[in-house]
């Protein structure tokens, strides 16, 4: 058996929905993580619960990138792929994310009844240069699966994968037992383990290749395995937010699910409202009463909430909106990723609204974003957005355990490290409000009425010319305070000036930084910025842009030679620099580092 040693490798497991592909992947990554490897995982989730088996929409799977250094993204192309049958393989080939030397392990259990289809898909794969390794389950495994009413194939595949990655059988059995031990009956667990072992032995005896991933240097630091939405949920608790109001919507619902279980133990409530509008209304009601509140949603919900967002800004009631973006417009692709809500967040509410927008590009961003969001929301008494997306929400990885701060009632107690993390200095102590008195209910002698109507400093409704002009000025000055507090954005790598500056925000951070650093290592003068606070932008931005011959964006949003993408359009308007979208894809798939690197090179070659 030939053993290939890799620093970074990517595999994927493709199955029908409901057969446990993600569960198998989770067990594998635990084994990887326990043996000192870094992992980054992207689950592929169908938008429907149980699409018909052996159909393209049924594709459910997991992509695992493993390496000996910290991984910030899901990477480029897949090196090895296991498919339950030819249909899921065919579906996945559409995405064109395979390495030209990718090995395909194809389960031929369904072949007898689908000869033609198998032949066609295999031809397609072979034409693309992929090497197909057909395999069938052993009779013992088949008998076990029959006894488990058709479940358990994922364990066979897990056995094969772990054999190919040289993960010891015993280690895996420990992980399987730790994962299922309490949930499955002894007999069921035993069968699952047997299926796993069958797969492991089969692969060890029948394939003449295996992979060894170098192990990273051991560190004594505590590590956690967590996904973006869970990190955001825990960050909500850490930030001292006490109520989260939402309405079921993919891919934001998992924030409510996570918090529904753990929030009460930390004094918090999850309120499932009757609709998206009500959800933000209740969050605003709670915040008006002095209780930090957040509402979580995705695109369609964001559209519904816009009237209340504008209201919060006018009435000066703090509110935090977490928007986990998905493909649009309209219902779009609920389980695919996109960053096309940017302008809805910045400009979505009618009548010239003011707000702060934060973009999360890493698990750590997700964990700390609620703190900085609360800081902005309460200091400015304005709406604050936390913009995540499907990819960010569902991808998970192993990271050193971040410090929790347990922020209490007073947001001025926010740690310097957190402000530093978001690239800003402290806001001034006394920021002018439209109304002087901002007392919450319960304070005698300060009774006041808040409204979406324009008011004077006393809070009295006022339709006079000067008064409305003043209100706009005061609200915008709040944003200017943020702008003045934002430091020069962190430049990725070590290129401060040069030929090209690549800009992104949110979830493109990982791929963007990997690509830019790689280009820099090859001697290219390519710089990179990925904004954590995307609205407002720091004041000196135009000066930074001028240090580069060209400025381009990388966005998960559609653009072409006439249509500017949201980020490019926004940056142009703010800097008057001719910012062009370099990569503007709305495929629903994350942008790979290689795609960005190639685009940078192509762009530089055009000179």
């Amino acid at each position, binding site marked *: 058996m030939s053993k290939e040693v890799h620093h970074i490798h990517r595999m994927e497991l493709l199955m029908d929905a409901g057969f446990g592909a993600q569960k198998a992947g989770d067990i594998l990554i635990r084994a990887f993580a326990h043996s000192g490897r870094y992992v980054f995982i992207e689950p592929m989730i169908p938008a429907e619960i149980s699409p018909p088996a052996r159909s393209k929409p049924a594709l459910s799977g997991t992509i695992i990138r493993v390496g000996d250094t910290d991984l910030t993204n899901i990477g480029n192309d897949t090196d090895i792929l296991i498919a339950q049958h030819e249909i899921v393989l065919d579906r996945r080939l559409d995405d064109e994310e395979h390495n030209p030397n990718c090995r395909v392990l194809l389960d031929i259990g369904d072949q007898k009844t689908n000869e033609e289809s198998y032949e066609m898909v295999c031809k397609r794969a072979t034409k693309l240069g992929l090497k197909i390794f057909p395999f069938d389950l052993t009779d013992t495994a088949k008998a076990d699966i029959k006894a488990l009413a058709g479940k358990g194939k994922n364990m066979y595949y897990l056995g094969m994968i772990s054999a190919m990655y040289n993960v010891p059988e015993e280690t895996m059995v420990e992980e399987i037992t730790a994962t299922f031990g309490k949930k499955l009956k002894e007999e069921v667990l035993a069968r699952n383990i047997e299926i796993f072992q069958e797969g492991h032995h089969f692969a060890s005896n029948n394939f003449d290749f295996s992979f060894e991933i170098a192990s990273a240097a051991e560190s004594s630091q505590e590590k956690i395995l967590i996904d973006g939405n869970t990190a955001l949920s825990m960050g909500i608790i850490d930030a001292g937010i006490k109520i989260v109001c939402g309405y079921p919507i993919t891919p934001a619902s998992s924030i409510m699910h996570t918090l529904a279980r753990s929030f009460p133990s930390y004094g*918090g409530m999850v*309120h499932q409202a009757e609709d998206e509008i009500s959800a933000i209304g209740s969050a605003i009601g709670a915040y008006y009463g002095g209780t930090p509140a957040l509402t979580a949603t995705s695109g369609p919900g964001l559209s519904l909430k816009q009237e209340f967002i504008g209201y919060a800004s006018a009435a000066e009631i703090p509110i935090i909106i977490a928007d986990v973006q998905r493909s649009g417009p309209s219902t779009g692709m609920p389980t695919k990723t996109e960053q096309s809500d940017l302008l809805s967040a910045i400009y979505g509410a009618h009548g010239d609204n003011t707000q702060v927008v934060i973009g999360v590009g890493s698990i750590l961003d997700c964990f700390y974003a609620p703190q900085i969001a609360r800081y902005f929301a309460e200091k400015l008494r304005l709406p604050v957005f936390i913009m995540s997306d499907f990819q960010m929400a569902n991808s998970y990885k192993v990271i050193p355990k971040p410090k929790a701060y347990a922020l209490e009632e007073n947001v001025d107690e926010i740690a310097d490290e957190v402000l530093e993390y978001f690239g800003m200095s402290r806001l001034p102590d006394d920021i002018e409000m439209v109304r002087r008195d901002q007392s919450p209910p319960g304070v005698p002698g300060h009774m006041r009425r808040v409204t979406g109507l324009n008011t004077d400093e006393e809070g009295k409704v006022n339709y006079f010319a000067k008064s409305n002009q003043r209100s706009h000025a005061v609200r915008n000055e709040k944003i200017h305070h943020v702008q003045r507090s934002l430091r020069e954005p962190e430049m990725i790598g070590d290129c401060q000036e040069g030929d090209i500056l690549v800009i992104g925000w949110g979830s493109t951070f990982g791929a963007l930084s990997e690509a830019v650093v790689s280009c820099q290592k090859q001697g290219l003068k390519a710089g990179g910025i990925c904004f954590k606070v995307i609205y407002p932008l720091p004041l000196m931005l135009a000066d930074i842009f001028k240090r580069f011959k060209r400025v381009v964006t990388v966005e998960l949003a559609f653009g072409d030679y006439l249509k500017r993408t949201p980020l490019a359009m926004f940056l142009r308007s703010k800097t008057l620099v001719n910012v062009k979208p370099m990569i503007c894809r709305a495929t629903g798939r994350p942008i790979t580092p290689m795609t960005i690197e190639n685009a940078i090179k192509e762009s530089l070659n055009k000179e």
Partner: protein
Amino acid sequence: MTTATEPSSQSPLTIKELNTENPRWCAGCGDFSIIMGIKRFMVNQAIAPHNTVNISGIGCSGRAPFYINTYGVHSIHGRAIPVATGLSLTRPELNLFIHSGDGDAISIGGNHLIHGLNKNFNCVFVLYDNELYALTKSQTSPTTRQGHKTNTQPAGTYLAPIKALRMVLGIGASFVANTADWMPDHLVNTLEAAYRHKGFSFVHVSQRCPHFDPYNFEHKSTDWFSFLTHEKGIPPDKRIADKTEQLQHDPSDLTAAFALANTDRTYFGLLYHDPAKPRYDTLMQEQVAAAGSKDRTKILDKYKI
């Protein structure tokens, strides 16, 4: 969470202290009487203004919070209930009064009314029912009577109105009362009963709109309505009690309440009262209280690998 503090002055509350500015309503508007009723009720019951929040949506009724010197939220059209829900969950010690018109409550905010009633969180919900949109200048509302001419249905309103009382009984309201702006005594007694009920107290108020519909609600006549009386109910209006029928009605009898709400005759009084209906706000608060308090600095420990 901010906790309410007691007022420094212990002198009794007066109507004057509850006044703010001159309301910008039309002369003769029923809304004047409604907020006066609320103020009288507050004085009678010594309700602390600083622990009271009046919450409204949009419309003539939406302005009510401005004219009562308590805390107030003039929110957006139809959405007073969501705002109040958030406050009830997090500030249970506050007295919450929701002011909503027929368009605000039953049209644009209809969904919230369904769920407010079902959640049964503690508040007094006052439906200012003038049977049309007034602030936007006379359009048909869900309660406009069939045939009444409006700016959007100038040939006469097409459909029969929604019977608000029947609707809320159907949804499962725990407290349903009916009163009118021109019966100050009955209005105050209704508000007191509504306040005593811990849950979502639905108070329907027939409200005159002399500007856009001067002939609606023949308030000088008593032929078209009866008072519901019961020892557990609301006493009939002193001034006109003897001028019309008084019908004995047990407010715990849901079937009888439905029958009354399903007729074309108007019945003022307490239609239905179920003090035992579970409350979403207290259930949620109890869940938090029972969960204990974990150390937030260890929040990530369960994700350790």
